[in-house]
C-alpha cells in the first residue's frame, strides 16, 4: 500500500499532547504545519542536515519530554554523521522519522541516494539507534529511528511562519513559560 506523506505525519502528530517537534527544511516542515501549526513545532527553513542534531540538543535539555524529529531523506543524508553522534549519546526520549520519498522535493524531484538502495535504517541500526516501524515512533525506546517510504508526489505547500527569531521565541515560551525570557 502506498503511503502519503501528509497522512503519515498527521498520524504521527495525532493527539500530540506534550510532544516537542523539530522538522527538517522543505516538505517535512510543510507536513507538520499541514497537521496543525503549534508553538511546540520548530520547522526549519535552512541549516540542512541539522534537524536530528537539533532534536538531540532538545532531548538532552528536556529529558522528561518526548522529542520527535520529522525530516526528509535528502536532509537526513546531509547529516548522516549525526546518527553516529546520537548513537553515542543514547537519548531515551528522542525519535527520528525520515519521510522518504526518494526525492529532493523542493528542487525538482531529483532522485536521492535512497532511490538507489542506500538504506538509512541500516545506517541508523549500525550507529546504535533503535530502528522500529514509524507507527511506534511516539513511544518506542529512544534513540528510536524509522523510515516511512512515501509516494513521490507534489502537493500544496502549507507554510509555517518564516521568521527564525519568532519560531525560536514562541517555542521557548510555550515550553519554558515566562522563565524563557530570563534564563
Amino acid at each position, binding site marked *: 500500500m502506498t503511503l502519503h506523506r501528509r497522512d503519515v505525519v498527521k498520524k504521527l502528530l495525532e493527539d500530540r499532547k506534550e510532544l516537542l517537534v523539530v522538522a527538517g527544511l522543505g516538505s517535512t516542515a510543510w507536513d507538520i504545519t499541514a497537521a496543525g501549526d503549534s508553538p511546540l513545532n*520548530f520547522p526549519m527553513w535552512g541549516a540542512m542536515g*541539522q534537524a536530528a542534531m*537539533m532534536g538531540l*540538543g532538545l532531548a*538532552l*535539555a528536556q529529558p522528561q519530554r518526548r522529542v520527535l524529529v520529522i525530516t526528509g531523506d535528502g536532509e537526513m543524508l546531509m*547529516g548522516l*554523521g549525526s546518527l553516529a553522534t546520537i548513537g553515542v549519546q543514547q537519548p531515551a526520549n528522542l525519535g527520528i522519522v525520515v519521510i522518504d520519498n526518494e526525492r529532493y522535493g523542493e528542487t525538482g524531484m531529483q532522485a536521492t541516494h535512497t532511490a538507489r538502495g542506500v538504506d538509512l535504517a541500516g545506517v541508523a541500526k549500525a550507529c546504535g539507534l533503535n530502528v522500529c516501524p514509524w507507527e511506534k515512533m511516539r513511544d518506542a525506546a529512544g534513540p528510536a529511528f524509522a523510515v516511512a517510504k512515501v509516494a513521490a508526489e507534489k502537493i500544496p505547500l502549507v507554510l509555517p511562519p518564516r521568521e527564525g527569531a519568532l519560531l525560536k521565541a514562541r517555542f*521557548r515560551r510555550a515550553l519554558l513559560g515566562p522563565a524563557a525570557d530570563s*534564563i
Partner: protein
Amino acid sequence: MWPDEIHRELAAAKVRLVGYVPDAGHKRLIELCQADKSMRAVVLSTEEEGIGLAAGAWLGGERSVLLMQSSGVGNVVNVLGMVKECRFPLVTLVTMRGEEGEFNPWQVPMGQAMRAALEAMGTVVQRPASPEDIAPTVNAALRLAYDSYASVAVLIPQRIIGIKSFQEQAAQ
C-alpha cells in the same frame, strides 16, 4: 592554567552541554568537562553538528558551548545562517592553527580565512592576547551570548597553545 580557568567560567555560567570536535589545544578543557558531573560532553563527528546541538539545547532552555579547532570553522559557515536568523546564543571556543608558528601548511588557508568567515556570518570574534586574558574574555563572551543573544567566538592564539611540531602534538 587557562583551560582550568575556562572550565571554571563555563561551570559558573551554568553551561550544561559541551559539544566538541577534539583538538590538541582543547585536550585539557575537554577532559575537565568530561569529568564535571554538571556538564555533558558530546563528541561530534563534524563541527556543524555542534551548531544544531547548541540551538536545540537553547530551545530546551539549556546553555552550551562549542569547542573546535580553526579548521572546523569552515564546516559551520552555512549553519551559522540559522544562528543569525533565529538569534540563537552561541559561544564557540576556537583553538587556532595556521597562524603563528604553524607546522602543517594545509592548516594555513582556513586558519587565515576563519576570522573573516565568522564575521561575514555575523559572529562576534574576540581574541585574547595573553593567557591571563583568556578567562575574562570567555566570561564576557558568555554574557554577550546569553544576555544579548549573540554568536561569539573566542580565538585562542596558536602562540599561547604553544605546540610547535607534529612530534610534540603526538606526544600530548
